[in-house]
Structure formats: C-alpha cells, structure tokens
C-alpha cells in the first residue's frame, strides 16, 4: 500500500519523464525480468540522477574504465545498482545483453555492485554507509596526486541513518574537499516505511550545512534541473558539495510509487514484468 508522502516544494508535480528516462526504466525492467528479483523502487527513484551524471557530467572512458583522469562515481546505495547498470550498458562498459543475466550464477551483475566484476564500478557497495568514507579517501588521494578528477558519491536516504556517513561528513568538511559531491536520493521511503517515521532526517539541508557542506536541493527527476545543479559544482571552493535530490520511490511505476513494499521484490513473474512495461507505456 502506498505511503502518504508529500511532494517537496522542490518537486514539480508536472515534470514528465521523457523518452530517454522511460527507455532507461525499460532497461531496468529487462534486468528485473532476467534476474526475477531486484530493488525496484530504490532503482527507479535513482534513474535521472544516474542518467545526468553519465550523460552530461562525468568524465570517463568506457573502453578504459581505469583511466586515471576519470571522475570517480561511487554508488553508495548499492541496492540501487540497476540504475547504474543500465547507464554503464548505455555507455558501452558492457553489452546490453549482460543486463539479462542480472543475479544469475555466473553473471558479473549481482544484486549489489562489485568493483572487481563490473567495469565502471568504483567500489563494491551494498553494506550501507561505506561509500562516503571511501569517497573522502579517494578525494584525498587524488588531491595528493595533484589530479583534477572529481568524486561523486550517491547515497540513499535510509542509508544516512548510518553513523559512518556523519563521521565521513566531518572529515570531508575538515579537509575542505571541494572535489567531492554527495547526492542524496531522497525518496523519503526506506525499506521499512517512510523515513519521517523510521528515523526522521529533517531538517536535512540544515544538518549538512552544519556539517560544513555547501548544500543545494533539486527535483531529482527534473533532468534539466539536475544538469544545472551538477554543472555548478563545487558550490564553494572551500567546501564539499551536497545535493538533496527530491525523488519518488518507484518513480514511473504508478502502482509502486511511494510504496515501501516495492523496495525490493523477489520471485518476479512474467505478469509483473508485463505490468511494469505497461505502466511505463502509459507515461
């Protein structure tokens, strides 16, 4: 049953998903069909964030995933990996057909991303609260090396319940890591229910500002708004940047939006796959 989650003032209820956003969601459904399981709601809320990063912002070479000058993109909410997998396929890190093998025994694509297996994945995540400390270390390392590469860490909202996130936030601020940008996929529904009920994060922007970050908020499904805000990082040359992306859990699948029951599904049958395709068709 859908949770009553009010849209943030930053969110435009009239923002329409364009063809590319729908295509990317269809690719997620393709992988869900292949693996017969997956984090549906958590991936769908993340699509535009990953899309804009890979289409417009990140510097990378798909044929040379370890290119030294690449920007480092760490998906700390590893359970949202389908959104990253489809972008990596789109960008040529691996063929689209690999999406069909999601979670199968010999696949490179597991239910959480592994750096050793997946070209383009910078860190193995899935255990929550690990990406930001790693991102701080990488940003420090890049600074020592004199590199201009940037670090982007994408976290979930439930994820930032973890104390390690706030330990790392203190450190990022202390070191004035302006090359570091953190994006929060703030869909306001975690695995067990609304974040406001489980462990309220508000006032979220004020918390990050108090921890020394330069903060912006954006509609996380508005592609143009995401481009604008991401093209303007760092917001401050002496501070790390934080972008609160207001999103909708399960975005694009009307029957699953804002519903914690769609956080993850296993034993996905063909009729559900068809239902997901139909919902996207209707957009």
């Amino acid at each position, binding site marked *: 049953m859908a949770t009553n989650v009010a849209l943030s003032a930053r969110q435009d209820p009239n923002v329409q998903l364009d063809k590319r956003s729908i295509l990317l969601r269809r690719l997620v459904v393709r992988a869900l069909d292949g693996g017969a399981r997956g984090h549906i709601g958590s991936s769908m809320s993340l699509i535009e964030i990953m899309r804009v990063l890979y289409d417009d912002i990140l510097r990378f070479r798909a044929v040379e995933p370890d290119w030294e000058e690449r920007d480092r993109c760490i998906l700390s909410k590893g359970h949202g990996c389908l959104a990253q997998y489809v972008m990596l396929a789109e960008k040529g890190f691996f063929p689209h057909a690999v999406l069909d093998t999601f979670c199968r025994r010999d696949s490179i694509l597991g239910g959480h991303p592994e750096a050793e297996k997946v070209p383009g994945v910078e*860190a193995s995540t899935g255990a929550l609260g*690990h990406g930001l*400390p790693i991102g701080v270390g990488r940003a420090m390392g890049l600074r020592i090396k004199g590199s201009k590469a940037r670090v982007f860490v994408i976290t979930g909202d439930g994820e930032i319940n973890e104390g390690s996130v706030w330990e790392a936030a203190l450190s990022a601020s202390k070191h004035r890591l302006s090359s570091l940008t953190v994006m929060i996929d703030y869909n306001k529904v975690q695995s067990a229910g609304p974040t406001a009920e489980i462990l309220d994060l508000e006032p979220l922007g004020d918390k990050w500002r108090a921890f020394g970050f330069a903060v912006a908020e954006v509609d996380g499904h508005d592609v143009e708004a995401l481009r604008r805000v991401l093209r303007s990082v760092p917001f401050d040359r002496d501070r790390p940047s934080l972008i609160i992306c207001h999103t909708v859990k399960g975005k694009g699948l009307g029957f699953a939006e804002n519903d914690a029951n769609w956080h993850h599904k296993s034993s996905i049958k063909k009729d559900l796959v068809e239902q997901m395709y139909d919902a996207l068709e209707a957009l």
Partner: protein
Amino acid sequence: MRPTCIDKVFELAKRDSRVAYIGSDLDPPLTRRMREEMPGRAFMEGVSEQHVVGMAAGLAMEGFIPYVHTIATFITRRCYEQVAVDLCLHNLPVRLIGNGGGLVYAPLGPTHLAIEDIAIMRALPNMTVVSVCDAEEMKRFMDQTLDWPGPIYIRLAKGYDPIVSHPEPGFEIGKAIVMREAPGPRGRVLIVSTGVATTRALAAVDALVADGIGCTIMHMHTVKPLDTDALVRHARGTDLIVTVEEHTVLGGLGSAVTDALVENLPGAVPALKRLGIPDAFAKKYGSQDDLMEVYGLQPPQIAQSVRDGLRCHAA
C-alpha cells in the same frame, strides 16, 4: 615495539611516496612528527574508526599504502564491517596497526582488551595477521609490509618487551621461525606460539629441558597465512603440541594450528593442548603480567602445562 613500528612507518614514508599514515586520536607528539616527516600524507582523523578504515580504503584505491593506527579493540571490533568490505573484499594494501593487542590494557578493563582480535581478523578472506615478538623483529617485518598484497593486521604488544628474536633466520611473512630446538630423553614437545607469548614460551623451555623434556619452540609470527608446511613437518612424530597465545582459545593460533593438523595429518594428529585466554571477559585488572598469570601464561605455568600434557599423553 610500538614506537619501533611507528618509526618504521615514517621511515617507509620517506623512502616511498605511496605510504600514508592515518591515526585516530592517539599521541599528540605523533601528529607533529607526521606533519614534519610525511607532509600531506599523514592524517589524524579523530575517534571515527568506521570512517578511518573507509578513508584508508579510498586512499589505497588511488594507489597509496595507508598505515592506520589506533587501539586494537577499536580497529578490529568497532569497524569490522569496514575492514571486511572496504579492505578485504577489495583486497587493498591497507595496514591496520592495533595498539595493545591481548592483555596490554589490563588496568583499563574488558572494553580495551583485544582478546579476540586475531580470531576475527583471521576469519576474513584476504586478511594477513601478524604478531611479532619484539621490536627487532618488528623492524624486519615492517620492511616487508610495503609490497605485500592485500590488507595486514599488525598486532602490537606493550612496547619495550625483551628482545628474544635473532636476525639470522631473517623474516618472511607467512614463514614460521624455529626459535629453539632442544632434544631430551623424556619426550618430544612442539610449542607453537605467537607475539610476546613466544617470549614466555622460550622462558619456559629451560626448566623443561632440565627435566629432560625435548622441546622445539616454533614462533608463528604470521597466524594467517599459517605456515602449514613447517608446522606439519615439526608436528609429525611429536608426543605433544602446545600452542601458547595471549588471546582467547576460540579462533586464534590454537584453532589455526588444530585446523591445519586435522587437515594435513589425518589420523596422526599428536596430542594437543591449547594455552590461552578462556572464553570469558576478564574479571580482574592489574598489569598485563598479572592477567597473564591469571590465565596460566607465565613461563612456570606454561612449563607445568607441558609436563601435565605429557603425563596425560603417557597415561
């Protein structure tokens, strides 16, 4: 051992620009030295072990070799998932320096006693676990940490422990050192020990040899990967094997030795006795030596345990 270890980090940092140092909240003079001796590559990050280990992983992903230093309980228990996922799963060359392994912090009580650090570190794939016996051996070991692949847990003892190691056998991570071999007419005993328990075991041998008991002391400075070849070679045909460790008997050196013998000497495992800390939190304070005595790990007690073990075996 502790100052020697940290001195070696600084020495390595001078000779290799990949070396970085991360402390949490120990020893302000250290911070000054770090800034002087390895500018830009030394960090004091505060009491935030989860973050510190993740940050070390991030630095290692960028090609650095971070040495992370804090109290042993906090660098193992507190951030165990970060050690497992960030370091071991990625198999990164991060060195965890655990200050005060075992019973060193006896007066501070169970929160500070790292009695299961070897067990929990040893359980993680890709982790190497090393517990040297004195400062001189620490020097030889630290030189080898630069290019060792994967993470290492380095267990520090109290510091200023008696020097019992010798340069002659050299030092190789994963290769046990036979510290003493004394034959005797009344039985053949192999004592396997690690860390400063080796010092106690060596001190126990004279009394045993005086009793006519033949003893071999094998110093297993690397608990993982265990030198199974050397262990099995020396174990074959002995009357009794005794393991000695300043660590719980669950999952540490004694368990590692037992596992290796059961796997490699099927049907021919000699009698085995494991000396260590029982499966309980410490109920007393005092000094490290006090607690060693409480747990039967001082030289006369080790000697007596060997005699008792031999008697049981003979019976």
